[in-house]
């Protein structure tokens, strides 16, 4: 990476120890005209072409999915991440994320789309050699051929490298012979090209480009699933499958590099989709609450319904702010690469890997926000929400998988402190030094006087959340050292603290930027959402911290640390009941998610 890149783009994880400027983050208020237009085309396509077909798609009429993907290809929607020389559009990451967000309205069809453009095509975009790119990308970018990704096996899910599928070079040295079974392969009913992971000679974990028509390749029966029923899910069966040796993707034994990088991208894209789905569920719920009459009035008049809507909105705001901030960082880093460097997939992958922590945080956060939102959406709909003809019933079932695939939320939680620690050890992030500094500071901590400016309290939350992270992570490292990896509850708590810290900071920065651009009056709803979200999140941070301290320490040290935590968490609470009514009033008037 050139030094100019490092200066411009924030380092992954650095938000925990640095103060971030509002002007340096990307927010959804910063979309340019062209990006908005691309979002609109996607939305129009989805609403007019896909939504009317969803019932049939969900009844497994996959020829419709296939046709719709072709149509999407004609509009250029499949080429966003493919370089121009291979028939793509090479859009910036902000445009491609907005397209992904808008696709979420297509529910399970968005999975078909996502699996094709994301985990299906990207391994070739990023790690394919020139011949492979020329051979596959033009067809993938236009939808002439559809891609799928085959990593998981019956016996290896989270433990992806434990794959049993084997590749052996044949005697004449022309083909790899693949044997094994891959499981839960999205798009498997109609995909033409599969990126398949197998171990060469049972040892070297590697990726291959496998065509459906190759000898020995077949798919199993369609799975019966809880949700996302409109996405095709089958096993991929490899029985002496003959794969030309030119179709080895990347180097032999380096498949894990491809797999982990693709997972990072998959994670942030999943988070973007969750943002879109959460906004949709909220909108449907607001409209329903205004329409549904009980006790001779719309149920939206009841403050308990208003409370639900406002909480959903605050969470959606936090998740949208966090995710687009990450997309912006990613774009900063990749956008700063020269056109020559842009062609180098490994540099692109490195750019994403830099934000592995943020990708995991977003994945966990956005999928859990969505689960909360769809759950309350069903609740607001009452009995009707339990009926299949209502959209929220479907969204509720579809949401659940997000916490499981692309790395379970548990695995992703564990990755956060693990990666932070590795970065600290490698000297990329001065975490240990900061933790030591904090220990001295904690002894002399004095309450700070807050200004009357909007967000003063919320900025204080951000600062203290980061200190709480350093305190808990520092204590854990001190106490457990190398054995910390066995303390999964503590690690998960640390991840949650980091996650909430990232969320409240993203909310504060976005809101601050809006105030700077349009003034506090125009940002009134954002300020309310920020106040609600930050206070409730900070209380969760405190609870995670407290539980961790009690688990780690005892005796005098325990008392001392609890009192330090008390100092860091002292604040005058706002009346969230009132704030939420104010937020709900705006939502109900506009009948959609507005910030």
């Amino acid at each position: 990476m050139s030094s100019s890149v490092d200066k411009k783009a924030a380092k992954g994880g650095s938000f925990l120890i640095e103060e971030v400027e509002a002007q340096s983050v990307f927010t959804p208020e910063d979309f340019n005209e062209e990006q908005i237009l691309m979002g609109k085309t996607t939305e129009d396509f989805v609403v007019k072409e896909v939504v009317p077909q969803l019932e049939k798609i969900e009844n497994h009429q996959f020829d419709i999915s296939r046709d719709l993907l072709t149509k999407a290809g004609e509009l250029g929607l499949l080429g966003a991440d493919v370089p121009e020389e291979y028939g793509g559009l090479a859009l910036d990451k902000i445009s491609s994320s907005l397209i992904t967000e808008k696709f979420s309205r297509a529910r399970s069809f968005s999975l078909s789309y996502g699996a094709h453009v994301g985990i299906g095509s990207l391994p070739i975009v990023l790690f394919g050699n020139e011949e492979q790119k020329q051979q596959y990308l033009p067809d993938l970018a236009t939808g002439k051929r559809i891609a799928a990704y085959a990593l998981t096996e019956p016996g290896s899910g989270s433990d992806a490298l434990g794959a049993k599928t084997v590749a052996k070079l044949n005697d004449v040295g022309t083909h790899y012979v693949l044997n094994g079974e891959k499981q839960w392969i999205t798009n498997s009913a109609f995909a033409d090209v599969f990126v398949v992971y197998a171990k060469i000679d049972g040892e070297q974990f590697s990726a291959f480009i496998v065509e459906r028509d190759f000898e020995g390749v077949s798919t199993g029966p369609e799975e019966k699933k809880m949700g996302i029923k409109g996405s095709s899910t089958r096993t991929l069966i490899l029985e002496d499958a003959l794969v030309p040796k030119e179709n080895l993707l990347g180097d032999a034994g380096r498949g894990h590099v491809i797999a982990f990088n693709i997972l990072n991208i998959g994670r942030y894209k999943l988070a973007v989709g969750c943002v879109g789905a959460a906004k949709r569920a909220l909108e449907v719920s607001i409209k329903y609450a205004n329409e549904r009459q009980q006790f001779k009035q719309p149920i939206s008049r009841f403050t308990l319904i208003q409370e639900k809507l406002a909480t959903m909105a605050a969470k959606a705001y936090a998740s949208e702010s966090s995710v687009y901030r990450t997309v912006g960082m990613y774009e900063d880093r990749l956008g700063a690469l020269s056109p020559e460097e842009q062609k180098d997939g490994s540099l692109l992958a490195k750019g994403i890997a830099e934000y592995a922590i943020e990708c995991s945080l977003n994945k966990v956060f956005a999928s859990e926000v969505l689960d909360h939102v769809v759950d309350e959406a069903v609740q607001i709909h009452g009995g009707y929400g339990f009926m299949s003809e209502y959209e929220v019933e479907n969204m509720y079932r579809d949401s659940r998988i997000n916490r499981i695939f692309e790395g379970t939320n548990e695995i992703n939680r564990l990755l956060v402190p693990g990666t932070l620690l590795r970065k600290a050890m490698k000297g990329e992030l001065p975490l240990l030094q900061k933790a030591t500094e904090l220990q001295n500071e904690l002894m002399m901590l004095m309450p700070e006087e807050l200004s009357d400016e909007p967000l003063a309290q919320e900025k204080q939350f951000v600062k203290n959340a980061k200190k709480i992270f350093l305190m808990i992570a520092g204590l854990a490292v001190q106490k457990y050292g190398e054995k910390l990896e066995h303390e999964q509850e503590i690690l998960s708590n640390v991840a949650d603290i980091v996650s909430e810290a990232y969320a409240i900071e993203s909310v504060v920065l976005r809101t601050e930027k809006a105030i700077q651009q349009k003034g506090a009056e125009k940002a009134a709803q954002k300020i309310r959402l920020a106040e609600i979200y930050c206070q409730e999140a900070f209380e969760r941070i405190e609870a995670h911290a407290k539980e961790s301290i009690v688990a780690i320490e005892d005796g005098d040290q325990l008392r001392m640390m609890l009192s330090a935590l008390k100092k860091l968490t002292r604040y005058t609470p706002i009346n969230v009941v009132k704030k939420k009514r104010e937020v709900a009033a705006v939502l109900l008037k506009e009948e959609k998610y507005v910030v």
Partner: protein
Amino acid sequence: MNIYVILKRTFDTEEKIVIENGKISEDGVEFIINPYDEYAVEEAIKLRDEHGGEVTVVTVGEEESDKQLRTALAMGADKSVLIDDEDVEDGDQFSTAKILAAYFEDKEVDIIIGGNVAIDGASGQVGPRLAELLDIPHVTTITKLEIDGTNVKIERDVEGDVEVIETSLPVLVTAQQGLNEPRYPSLPGIMKAKKKPLEELEIDDLDLDEDEVEGKTRTLEVYLPPEKQAGKVLEGELDDQVKELVSLLRSEAKVI
């Protein structure tokens, strides 16, 4: 072929109308290409693809109309012109037609396509007025258009019936629903639109004086339709119900 589209920026069809200080508030409102004008854009692009030539999209309106022009360019139009009417007082259909006529004065025109009506003002006047000023024939609410040389065959919607008309170029037509299915701007189209010309003109550039185009109409009052009242279910013998209904229509609704 020199194909022109006249286009208007309007409120999104899903927007709720809010009146503030006697005016319709534009605060936070989303704007779109008037849906009938979208048919016009689509038809123009199809004509060009069939007969060759160039599609120029023209709008009279505020500066922000450039977004709708960009959308038309992204759909496939070649050029666009924005005539800023900010300085025109009480602009109405007269003003717009007059401004457009001045713009078209020195242009070689084969066909001008507009929407049958704008979904905001809904006057349906600008097209016919412009044709009169340019002294060319016009056909409104068209649902089918065939051009062969200079011969033009048109089907138009007449309150649900179809009228077939033959005329010749140059002509001005306005599009009715059913004429075509407007395309979405494709992503490559959106990227290309950035580089297509968008000419911005002021009234002065057309050798017009602001007074000449000042509106001929005055808006006295702006108000929302009355809110829908709860319905009434009549009861009793059928004869009595009919009598009651008739009497209510006379006394309450005052429609008979």
